[in-house]
């Protein structure tokens, strides 16, 4: 007789999901609701918190193998990542890295049900997602990191970038995977670009079934607990080959260079393109006639003494130089008004830009692989956002961003010092992809330097508040503010440089930045850390900026058995 009773994962709450998957009697929860680690930032804004901040950590065994499941509660604040919830996820992965280093293999599984950064905590989400990404990249060297996207929410925003980093992804037809949610794309790009009410089209673009057909998700399962367990087992046993998509730079970059966007491509065409070999497509991009002298380009020219870019993508500038005797590769993303990806013409990070960053960072890793002195890498950060567009979502912009994150994190782990220079906007997925994986962050103290996760207009729509209410809330919670002084209060900056003209820099301004970069470089050289932990060790972070993040990690240590 056919089995007709199914045990649904999709319909269950985050905690139930974790307990359902793990072997009975083996599972115990860490930092559960009775520990009362709720979000201090929601309370400060008069928003009802949840006792576990919507992040559930359950440790136990799965088919007898040591496993830890980190499950995001999509019903609470759309599964948004705040300081506490983000630290619970990042801290758990960091703990697993330490265990694996000692030879104690534990398999991490992340159950995604999240809209990305929790907008009410904004830059805390950004910092957390950078730390989660860093941990996944480090952890993949020891064990496969498995991501499950069951639905209802799916996985969006910065968290989609971390999903792209997972060794393997399991989805259901009810799961969705994309960077910018359809409502945000419509808000930013207009209804002609994407009608967020056209649900059928949206499922055909980013639904689990399509992502699986397009070979962006590894396993598609029907919603029943045994199916998920089998899928996990098949990944761990090696039966499902790990595809390492973020390392397939040539395939994706060649594909995106060759696409003809004069008409909107259909979801079926996208599947065909994504699953076909790209070796025989070899198109060069046109050299743009018009050069936009953006802040990022000015600083790139200054730092490289006007060297020509060696990059094949006009919107990503790359050059090698020496800075006071230190070999360095400088990378900037700049506007290209003739970019055929018309949603990425103002310096946004889109499909081409993400993969181009990945290409040139990986090139440096390869070229320096036998050298003891690895090249310093300097991402110049002046990025208004990731690209919001139909084709971007259809073809997986999240993965382009994952690829950039992966490349930077891999470079850092293999000993390349990375110092990011924030000279302009450092926003959302674009900042995560270009800058946030640096060992040290340096920012210019200028009103043109901003760090945030979403335009005020979109953030107001998503959180159902007015822009005035958002501004009011930002006074109480610095992580919600856009200016660099507020970001500095979170303790993640190595230096905030005063007295530098960010928009029209001259050689003196250059000297100030170069001096700070060299300081950071020496600081990295004198340290044994190759992770992002210095952001939690600064005086500001310890005394105020990241108190909750630190406390969460200490408690994970205490409760881990």
């Amino acid at each position, binding site marked *: 007789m056919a089995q007709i009773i199914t045990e649904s994962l999709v319909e269950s*709450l985050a*905690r*139930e999901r974790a*307990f359902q998957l793990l072997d*009975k*009697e083996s*599972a115990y*929860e860490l930092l*559960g*609701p*009775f520990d009362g680690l709720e979000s201090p930032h929601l*309370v400060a804004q*008069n*928003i*009802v*918190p*949840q*006792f576990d901040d*919507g992040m559930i950590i359950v440790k136990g065994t799965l088919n007898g193998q040591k496993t830890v499941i980190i499950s995001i*509660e999509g*019903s*609470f*604040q759309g599964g948004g990542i705040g300081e506490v919830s983000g630290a619970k996820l990042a801290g758990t992965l960091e703990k697993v890295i330490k265990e694996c280093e000692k030879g104690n293999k534990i398999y991490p599984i992340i159950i995604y049900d999240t809209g990305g950064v929790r907008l009410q905590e904004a830059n805390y989400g950004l910092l957390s997602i950078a730390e989660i990404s860093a941990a996944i990249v480090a952890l993949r060297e020891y064990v496969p990191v498995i991501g499950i996207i069951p639905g209802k929410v799916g996985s969006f925003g910065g968290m989609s970038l971390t999903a792209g980093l997972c060794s393997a992804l399991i989805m259901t037809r009810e799961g969705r995977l994309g960077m910018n949610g359809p409502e945000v794309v419509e808000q930013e790009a207009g209804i002609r670009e994407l009608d967020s009410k056209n649900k059928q089209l949206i499922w055909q673009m980013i639904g689990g079934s399509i992502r699986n057909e397009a070979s962006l998700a590894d396993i598609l399962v029907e919603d029943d607990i045994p199916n998920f367990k089998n899928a996990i087992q098949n990944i761990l046993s090696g039966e499902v080959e790990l595809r390492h998509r973020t390392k397939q730079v040539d395939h994706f970059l060649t594909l995106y260079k060759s696409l003809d966007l004069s008409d909107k491509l259909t979801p079926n065409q996208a599947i065909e393109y994504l699953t076909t070999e790209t070796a025989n497509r070899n198109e060069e991009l046109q050299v743009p006639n018009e050069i936009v002298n953006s802040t990022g380009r000015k600083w790139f020219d200054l730092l490289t003494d006007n060297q020509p870019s060696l990059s094949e993508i006009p919107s990503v500038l790359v050059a090698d130089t020496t800075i006071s005797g230190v070999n360095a590769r400088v990378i900037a993303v700049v506007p290209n008004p003739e970019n055929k990806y018309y949603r990425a013409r103002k310096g946004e990070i889109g499909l081409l830009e993400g993969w181009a960053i990945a290409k040139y960072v990986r090139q440096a890793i390869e070229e320096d692989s036998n050298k003891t002195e690895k090249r310093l890498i300097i991402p110049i950060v002046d990025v208004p956002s990731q690209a919001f567009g139909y084709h971007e979502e259809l073809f997986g912009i999240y993965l382009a961003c994952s690829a950039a994150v992966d490349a930077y994190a891999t470079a850092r782990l293999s000993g390349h010092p990375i110092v990011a220079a924030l000279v302009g906007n450092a926003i959302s997925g674009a900042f995560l992809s270009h800058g946030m994986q640096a060992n040290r962050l340096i920012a210019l103290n200028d009103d043109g330097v901003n760090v945030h996760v979403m335009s005020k207009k979109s953030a107001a729509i998503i959180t159902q508040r007015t822009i005035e209410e958002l501004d009011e809330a930002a006074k109480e919670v610095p992580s919600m503010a856009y200016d660099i002084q507020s970001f500095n209060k979170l303790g993640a900056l190595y230096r905030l440089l005063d007295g530098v003209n960010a928009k029209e820099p001259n050689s003196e301004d250059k000297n100030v930045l170069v001096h700070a970069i060299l300081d950071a470089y020496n600081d990295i050289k004198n340290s044994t850390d190759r992770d992002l932990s210095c952001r939690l060790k600064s005086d500001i972070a310890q005394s105020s900026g990241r108190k909750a993040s630190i406390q969460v990690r200490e408690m994970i240590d205490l409760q881990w058995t």
Partner: protein
Amino acid sequence: MEKLVYSFPASKSIDHRAHVGVVGSGDLEILVEPSDEKKTVFEIRTGITGFEDTWKKVIERFVSQNDISAFIRINDFGATPGVVSIRLAQAVEVTTNGSNHN
């Protein structure tokens, strides 16, 4: 957000602590912890303001049917009185039978 606190005399102790629900649309989260004091204390945080009278009635009804010495914390995200009562009943069940997992 509104904070409401209620306290009622109680006599019976409970065996287990309990956690049920989620702070999601139309739902609430309840945490029940045993207390040595002979009281049922409620600490409620709700995002829907101005319904103190309704809360009082729902809680009084619960206390009239359940005698437990406990500290009960509630995070509410717009649950109806019916949902509140069902979640409270569910929480009491867990305090008798133990964890709702495993």
